[in-house]
């Protein structure tokens, strides 16, 4: 966003406006030019998940927050390992030091997201995909949705042009 990034970075107001248009059910709990916090509900299939989305243009080392990143946590229901294989960790998460029961979702690798991208157009759809993949993993024990290091990482993209 304008305070912390390049000329191409979107401002907090732009991110907030876009989010309000695309996901009006998301409530903005806090906003400054550096930090925006939303909470809302996403239902990829037939279960609703309350998620928290935090954008931070500055680093907060004590909270393990890296500057110019978006941090997504699932508030309810709590994410969990599969009861039949409790020794296997949840794939594609990283720890949340403040709230260990709310690990943060690993939605992208370096360079795939930048503050010039709308959170509503990138982070939120990626969160929906993560939740869909998580449901499949909970039900089957297999993370079918690819990701870093998986055999599906390099599947060819077949996207239509953006609207």
């Amino acid at each position, binding site marked *: 966003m304008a305070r912390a990034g390049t000329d191409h970075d979107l401002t907090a107001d732009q991110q907030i406006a876009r989010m309000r248009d*695309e996901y009006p059910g998301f409530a903005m709990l806090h906003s400054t030019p550096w930090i925006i916090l939303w909470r809302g509900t996403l239902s990829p299939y*037939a279960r609703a998940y309350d998620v928290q989305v935090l954008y931070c243009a500055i680093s907060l080392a004590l909270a393990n927050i890296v500057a110019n990143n978006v941090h997504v946590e699932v508030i309810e229901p709590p994410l969990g390992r599969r009861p039949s294989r409790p020794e296997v960790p949840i*794939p594609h998460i990283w720890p949340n030091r403040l709230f260990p029961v709310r690990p943060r979702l*690993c939605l992208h690798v370096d360079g795939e997201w930048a503050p010039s*991208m709308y959170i509503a157009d990138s982070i939120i759809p990626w969160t929906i995909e993560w939740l*869909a993949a998580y*449901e499949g993993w909970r039900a089957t024990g297999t993370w079918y949705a690819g990701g870093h290091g998986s055999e599906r990482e390099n*599947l060819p*993209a077949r*996207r239509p042009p953006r609207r």
Partner: protein
Amino acid sequence: MAQPHELADDVRDVLLSDVAIRIQLSPSNYRLAVERVETLAAWLDREGSELAGRVVLVYAQGSMAINATIASCLTGDECDIDAIAQLHLPSGTTPRQGLDLLYRSIKGEKGSRYYSVTRRNTRCVTVDYAEMHVDVTPAELIPGREPRVSHIFHHRPEELGVPGERIVANPYGFAEWFNAVTPRAVAFEKFFEARSRAMDSVLTKEAEAEDVPEQIPAYLKPPAVVALQLIKRNRNLRYELRNGRRPPSVMLARRVAETGSGTGTPFDELLYQARQLAGYFAEHQAHGRLVHVVNPTCPEDVFSDRWPANLSEQGVYLDDLRFLVAQLERLERGADLETIADVFSRLFGENTSRMVIREFADRSGESIASGRLRSERSSGRVDLGRSGVVAAAASAPATSVRASPRHTFYGPSQPDGPSRN
């Protein structure tokens, strides 16, 4: 699920349809069943057969005639195919003689094709094939009655000195009635056909079966028929380890056809039908009465003549139906794939349900990994049709559906993974 929705929208509808497709008579077995009934008809009338010249007609009845055949057991895909052999028997033929005559005629001489695979039962003769059982019920038309109203025969093979009984029946009339009164739902039938064809390419690949005909009537099913198949599957599962008779399919078929709601979606229809059935049995049970279900085209044809024998038997099935309703209501309130898999396993069998969920998760995962997943704005609901997870019957302009930029989930299976997302 209270609001109307597109059929490919709701994961419960998609997965329930996939279970129904998995348990139903496959297209190749449907065609095989038709061929086998035709071959049996020709065999009965062959030169040298005791029934040569006495076979008026052989036709499918029961579930085959109403497109509701399912695998008869839970671990394989064996199906029971019912056929009527309309015979013109010598005057004075007793039920025992009629059944024995049909049995001998099908069995044939030692070394003939059906010799070692033919069984005589109380009301029919069964021919066992590797993938299906064909039950041939002998029948005689009753002069002066409506067409196809017949006598069928009842005689236990072990009761040698007993002539047996004649029972009035009209299975043909029932099938016609069923197909006429069952509410149709064009959108659902297109959806189910599309799912069947998509699934069939998987199933035929697995079975290395022959090519499937272009147009297969078995694919075109009203929601009530799919609900009936799932209710029968649930009944088979519940009765698998019980002794004694189970609620007859034809009784369930009549109730389902009569109460068909035309909801248009498999999940809503199944829940509606399960509630209706549970209510029907509960009302009788509460008043200490046994259900009495007859063929609507022939009141003497009593579908409940052998089940339930008493209130205890009736109560057992009522409990099953209440369990079915309770489990479906769990899903109605909202459920993730894990819960759906658990409920389906309890209701329709572990292997089929887990397979359906796994295939869905795989297709969905492939859609995500290749960047094809589409979700709705606002709710985040995955658009299964436009994501390629299911074959959508028709796609309207997608003004509220969105794609996302390319990305890669990071941190493979490591709880203490990298400090970036």
